[in-house]
Structure formats: structure tokens, C-alpha cells
């Protein structure tokens, strides 16, 4: 008994040493995480109750920033509108597109991996400057789209799609839909998980392609759709580069994304406190939407093995 206890202790001590060594090894990450993530998060929360222009010490203003945001800031409301319309249109479009291409590419054909890579490339180059330049070339007044439309006789003078208040948002939504690569890959992985025996059985029973898609593929894919839906919604709310590089929020704030306005307030107008407050409200918005999607999943997501989460 005593002996066993001693052994236990020894083992425990060794365990402690092992743990310590473990912490030592991950300390570069841990320090970075705390220093550059945890501390800034805390600081931004405190700063969201202050007026802080970086040049002079922060001044405590209580809930003033939050009040201004909802009651006195027209541009904030425009930013909300732009972001919501972007998320509500671009995310479903991107998912539908991704699913469509994934269904096409899941079957083993010649060169299928080449196609997959080709469709993934737009997502790789993401919100880069090169894409922004290309988009401006495509949708500019002298851009490719106008040339085609003029050639076809549909219009007789170039339209500035990016600068026009009615179409600017659509160019960004189109860009988002075009960059469907990462949800597509996840869909392909999900589609491959579905046992072929189901399809064979349905085929024998005389189900046509559409029936097989709606009765087998869709239900079995719902967990993947659910995952993609959440991830894409979150990244949709945080979209920044597209509007920063292509439209700069214009024309008159029609494409002023939330994150872009936050950046403007904080770094262009030196209203750090306000920027921080905006960031926390964005977190709240994303949180609410994620929670709603989770709640709704009870009604439409089907798990083969009843998963608990």
C-alpha cells in the first residue's frame, strides 16, 4: 500500500515534469497567443468604452460609442445594410455554386483533379490586389464586359459597373460567388462519404437523377452544408478586402462593408474607441447569427449517427 502510494507520487511528479516540458515547448505559441490575441481582445473591450485617438490618453466615455453607433451614425447604418445584403445574397449563391460544381466533379472522370484545381484557384488568390485589378478591368467602363455587351448591341455606351450605385454591390457578390473553391472541396469530400450502395438501391427501384439527388444526396449532405453555411456566414460578415480594394466602400457607401467602416474609423479618422466598440458589436452579430443557424439545424440537418454536440 505504502509502496504503491510512493510509486503513484513518483509517477505524478514525472507527469508534472512532462507537462512543464510541454508548456515550455509550446511557450512560443502560448506567449504569442496571449500577447497578440488575449491581451488585445481585453484591451479592445476596455477601449470600446473610451474615446481614444492614439495620440492622447484614452478618455472614458461609458456607453457613448455604442449609443452613437445606433442613434447618430448614418454611415454605420449604411454599413450594416451593405454587409447584411452582401451576406444574405453572396453566401447562399456561393454555396449553391460550390455544391453544383462539387456534384459535377465528384465522379471519376479524366482530368478531374485538374478541374478541381482550376476551380479552386480563384479562392487561393482570394482578396488579393491582382484580383481587384482584374475585377476593375472586367467591370470598368472600358472593361471586357462592356466590350461584349456593346458588340452584342445590348448597350451603346460603357457602364461603370463598379462605380454605379445600382451595380457596385453585385460586382462584389459576383466575386464572392466566383471564389467558391473551399466550400466546393468540402462538398466533394462530403459527397464521397455517401455510400454508393444507396444510389444503386435507388437506381434499381427506378429513381431518376433528380430524385436520387433530392432524396439521397441532399439529406446525407446536410451536416456538410451546415458546416459550410456557418463558416461562410462568419467570413461573409468579416469581408473587408473586396470592398477595400475594389470599391473603397463607394459609391456613397453602397458597398461600405462593416469591417471596412471599422478600419476607416479606427485608422483613418483615429477613433480607436469607436472602432473597438464596432468590433464588439460585430462579434455579437456574428454570434447571434451562428446561434440561430445552430438552433435551426435541428429542423434540417440529418445525422446518420445521432451526434450530440
Amino acid at each position: 500500500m505504502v509502496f504503491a502510494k510512493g510509486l503513484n507520487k513518483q509517477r505524478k511528479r514525472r507527469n508534472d515534469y512532462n507537462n512543464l516540458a510541454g508548456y515550455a515547448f509550446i511557450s512560443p505559441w502560448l506567449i504569442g497567443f496571449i500577447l497578440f490575441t488575449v491581451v488585445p481582445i481585453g484591451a479592445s473591450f476596455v477601449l470600446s468604452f473610451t474615446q481614444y485617438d492614439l495620440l492622447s490618453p484614452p478618455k472614458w466615455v461609458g456607453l457613448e460609442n455604442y449609443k452613437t453607433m445606433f442613434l447618430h451614425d448614418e454611415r454605420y447604418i449604411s454599413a450594416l445594410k451593405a454587409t447584411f445584403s452582401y451576406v444574405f445574397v453572396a453566401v447562399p449563391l456561393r454555396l449553391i455554386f460550390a455544391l453544383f460544381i462539387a456534384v459535377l466533379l465528384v465522379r471519376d472522370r479524366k482530368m478531374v483533379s485538374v478541374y478541381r484545381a482550376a476551380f479552386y484557384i480563384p479562392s487561393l488568390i482570394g482578396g488579393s490586389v491582382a484580383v481587384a485589378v482584374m475585377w476593375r478591368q472586367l467591370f470598368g467602363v472600358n472593361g471586357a464586359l462592356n466590350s461584349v455587351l456593346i458588340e452584342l448591341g445590348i448597350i451603346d455606351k460603357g457602364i461603370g459597373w463598379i462605380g454605379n450605385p445600382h451595380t457596385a454591390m453585385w460586382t462584389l457578390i459576383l466575386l464572392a460567388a466566383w471564389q467558391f473553391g473551399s466550400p466546393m472541396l468540402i462538398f466533394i469530400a462530403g459527397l464521397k462519404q455517401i455510400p454508393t450502395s444507396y444510389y444503386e438501391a435507388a437506381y434499381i427501384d427506378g429513381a431518376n437523377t433528380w430524385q436520387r439527388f433530392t432524396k439521397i444526396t441532399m439529406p446525407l449532405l446536410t451536416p456538410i452544408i451546415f458546416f459550410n453555411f456557418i463558416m461562410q456566414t462568419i467570413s461573409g460578415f468579416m469581408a473587408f478586402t473586396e470592398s477595400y480594394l475594389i470599391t473603397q466602400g463607394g459609391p456613397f457607401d453602397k458597398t461600405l462593408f462593416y469591417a471596412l467602416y471599422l478600419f476607416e474609423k479606427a485608422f483613418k479618422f483615429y477613433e480607436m474607441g469607436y472602432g473597438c466598440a464596432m468590433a464588439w458589436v460585430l462579434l455579437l452579430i456574428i454570434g447571434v447569427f451562428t446561434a440561430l443557424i445552430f438552433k435551426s439545424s435541428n429542423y434540417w440537418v440529418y445525422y446518420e449517427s445521432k451526434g450530440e454536440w
Partner: protein
Amino acid sequence: MKKWWSLLVVVILVISMVLTACGSQPAKDNTGSSTTNDQQKQDEQKQGESKGNAGGEKAELRIFWWGSQDRHDRTIKVIEMFEEKNPDVTIQYEFSGWDGYWEKVAALAAANNLPDVFQQDYQYLAQYAKKGLLEALDPYVERGILDLSDVDESSIVGGRVNGKLYGINLGSNAPCIVYDPALFQQAGVPEPTPDWTWEDYMDAAKKIHEKLGIYADRTFPGGYFHGLKHYVRQHGQKLYSDDGTKLDYSDDKLFEEFFTMELELVKQGALPMPDERLEVKSVEDEFLVTKKAAMAAAHSNQIVAMTKAANRPLKLALLPKHKDQVKEGMYVKPSQFFSVASTSKNKDKAVQFVNYFTNDIEANKVLMAERGVPISSKVREALIPLLSDAQKEMFNFMEVVIANSSPIDPPDPPGHPEVDKLLKNLEEQMLYGQLTPAEAAIKFREEANKILAKSAQ
């Protein structure tokens, strides 16, 4: 046991991180955190030392500016020349483009770590000076470290905030119109004279558009902001009040008139809509350069780059006068300043460097007026024989501006960048027919006053 250990490690890590992070944040007041206090004391001590044994140890200066590669090369060369002449000074320098420069300077200011000498802009000067971050340079002028005897007061005044000198102008320019004389001739329109009025401009614009089928200009003269400012000044008023807490001009009619003129030209097709204006991202695709327009709104020093891109002679014209103007709307604008940080440990040396930059002829032969027309008359004289045609046009034009200008308004208030954005949005809304100029004028006053009042707190 095991849990305790790991918890302890984490807690210690967190606490140490939090403490160090707090230390680097700006203290709320001078008695705030001990680390900053200690550092301040050390700084003061060092300052005392360097004053005590002047010239004993090597002084170190840090210099920071924004600009193009061309500017970086020229400035670095001058820094090396200065070091050679002053063996007791070593200079560390840093540079960047305009994008990101102010974010970085603000962060350095927050960390109490501003460079000894750094480039300042007219729209930020007041903000930095009022926060006590810049050294007033008047005493150095009195002590003869900074020599401004060859400089005209009109070139100095832009660097003053509340009567004190916080920035030395590195070159003068002015908002202006760059035009293509050949296209004017082709359209049978007389070239602008220094006396041309808004009516002349409107006529010229319409004629150029009718005769040549191109745009007359890419934007209205001066763009939405400088143009409106100019128009308000012509009526003897100011855009911003002296304390920067509100708009100063009293009559919304001015706003209305100005944008009504622009709207008229846009409706006739003599000016492009905003969506097309957007296409211009660099000098190379400026409509004037690609012959899609006969004029362009610019600052006078930009003619050098535009001429180079267009590869044909271009000329400079004043912004139009108003036929009943009360005073000249044009003014000499400092293109940028050097300011000395109030936290600098080697202020004398820092000012000496600024002086070298301003007055030394050899240094300015390297700089070659890249930042605008030098403020020292002696330097200007020395440079004239060396100038290219476009530079000559710029130098001559500045003489015309000086003869047709009134003193510059006080530096833009802290809320300016946001007001500028507001005006841009309103301009676009007017051009797309969503607001009439009269409605926009009222909205501008309301919103701008709100922004200005808030940022002045």
C-alpha cells in the same frame, strides 16, 4: 498536483504578459504606470547630459518620411551628406508610402517613441501640435540654429499653429489645373490667363467637349474639396472655423452654387460621372495623360510626373476667379513639413538637420524640388538653371500663385478626414441625382458640424 502546476504556469505567464502590456500602453496621466515614469526620468537625465557636454558623445537622430522611391533615394543621399559634414551625428532613417504612414506615426506617438524628425502634412499638423507632440521651433530661429532669413513669410505661415511654428515647409505647391495647350488650341479655346473666371472655365469646358468630343476635365477644378474651399475663400469666408469645431462659412448658397456648376457640366457630358472617374488609379491613366480630357485637377508639383507620363508639354493654370470675388481664393500650400518631436533627445541637432535640408544648396541640388518649390529664395535661384521644362513651368507658376493669392487658412482640424469623406459621398449623391445641391448643402452643414464638434472634444 498536476493541475496546480499547469495552472500556476499559465497564471504566471498571463500576469507577466498583462503587466508588460500595461507598461507599454500610454499612461493615463504622468503618475500612471511606473515603467513609463522611469523611462521619462531616464530620458530627462539623458537630455540633461547631452546638454551638459555638448558635442561630446555621438548624437543619434531618427528620421521618418513618406514618399516615392525617387524621394527615398534623394533623401537618403542628403542624410549621408549631412552625416559626413557632422561626424558627431548618426542618423537612422525609415520611410514608407503615404499608405500606412499615419497609422505608423500614430502608433509611435502612442508609444511615446516619435522619431526626432518626421514628415508632417497640413491636415495632421494641428492635431499633433495641439496634443503637445511637436516642438515649437521659434526659439531655434531666434538662436540662429534655424535660418529662415531667405524665406518669405507666406511660405512659413502654413507651419504655424496658434501662432507658434511647428513645421518647416519642405516645398510649396498649390491646388491648380494642369492643361494641355495643344488641345485648347485644337478646340479654338484661348488658354487660361491668371484672370480667368468661373464663366471662362465653364465656356472653355463646354467648347472643348463640343468641338473635340472628349471630356473637358476629369473632376471639377480642385476636386470636390479644394474646389469648394477655394470658392468659399473667394467670398471672403473660411471653410472651417479657427478653433476647428464647426463650419465657418455662413451661406449655404456658396455650396449650392459650386456644385450646381459641376452638375451642369456633368449633365452636358463635359465631365465624366463618378464611376468613370474611379478608373483613374495612377498618373498614367489620368484622363489628361491619355487625351480623354484636356484638363486635370492637381497640385502644382504633380505636373512633373504628369508631363513625364504624357510625354508632351503640359501647362499650369490657376483655379478660376469669381467675377465678384472679395479676395483671392488661391493660396500657397506647404506640400509637406518636417516637424521635430517634443520627445526628441537631440533637438538642437534635429533642428540643425532641418536647417540643412532647407538652406543648403548642395543638398537641394540632390533633392531637386521633388517635394515642391523650395522655400528659400537663394536655393530657388541656384536651382533654376538646372531645371527641366516641367519643373520650370512649376517654378514660374508658383510666382503667379504668389501674386494671385491670399494667406492660407489655418491647418485643417482633426475631424477633416471624416468631413472630406462626407463631402465626397454627398458629391456622388448629387451627381447621381439622389440629392439636389440645396439639400446636400444643408446635410453637409449638419453632418460636418457634428463630426467637427465631436473630434474637437
